[in-house]
């Protein structure tokens, strides 16, 4: 019975993920795309919970919904989106791209179903301990490297976005102190 419940939940998540993913690509407004992307991420977190990876799911929400989506929304708001016809939201190569993506997807999905015998087994007691031990023992060095990568990305992003500091001082308080001419 619980298996059946799990299947139902899985089906719901699948529909949500695929539907929202398609929505990200097809929506004619960038904000909609961003929100649908966040929705996809949330459902993906649900998938992780189904797989018994609650920690990963928590990180998923924390990072993707809490940070990445907000960052992308910032990006949307700082680059004004000009309204225009729906068709112009797509590139000229759209037919080619769609066909190519579909062609590549077909064999992969076929291969994916070749795993039909394998079962997934959720570990007892959650994945927190196992994940922590793996990260801080076997993968301690890559973990440190990843932190350096994040630092580099942070510095890089700041440098890229920073404007040249304007040489001109703030005008308003000055004008007041100047004698009228």
């Amino acid at each position, binding site marked *: 019975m619980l298996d059946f419940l799990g299947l139902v939940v899985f089906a719901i998540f699948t529909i949500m993920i695929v539907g929202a993913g398609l929505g990200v690509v097809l929506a004619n407004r960038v904000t909609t795309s961003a929100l649908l992307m966040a929705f996809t991420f949330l459902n993906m977190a649900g998938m992780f919970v189904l797989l018994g990876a609650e920690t990963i799911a928590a990180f998923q929400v924390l990072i993707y919904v809490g940070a990445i989506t907000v960052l992308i929304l*910032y990006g949307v708001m700082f680059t004004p989106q000009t309204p225009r016809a729906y068709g112009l939201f*797509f590139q000229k190569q759209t037919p080619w791209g769609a066909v190519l993506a579909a062609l590549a*997807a077909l064999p992969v999905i076929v291969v994916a179903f070749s795993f039909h015998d394998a079962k997934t087994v959720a570990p007892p007691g959650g994945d927190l301990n196992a994940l922590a031990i*793996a*990260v801080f023992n076997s993968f301690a060095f890559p973990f440190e490297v990843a932190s350096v990568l994040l630092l580099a*990305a942070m510095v890089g*992003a700041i440098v890229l976005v920073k404007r040249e500091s304007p040489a001109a001082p703030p005008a308003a308080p000055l004008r007041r102190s100047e004698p009228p001419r």
Partner: protein
Amino acid sequence: MPLAAFIAVSAALFFIGVAGVLVRRNAVVILMSVELMLNATNLAFVAFSRRLGVAGERGSVFVVFIFVVAAAEVAVGLAIILAAYRNRPTVDVDQLDEMKG
């Protein structure tokens, strides 16, 4: 749950992301599509890591690293988009063709 189902969902989302990169004009949406692709691989990693159930969390560790990479990528990617937008007020990738041969 069968592994195949998770892998299939992962593949579907991945190729939705591929299609998004290939068909959309808006650079921000392309960035989102890339994030979808990364997330699809996350699902595949976790699913494969659950295949035996007890074999540690090797697959999930990679997911953690993908989180790191994704966060870094979005930060730098958005910075690049904003910098490009400042030079040339458009976020349409097919108008940013200064590299044309």
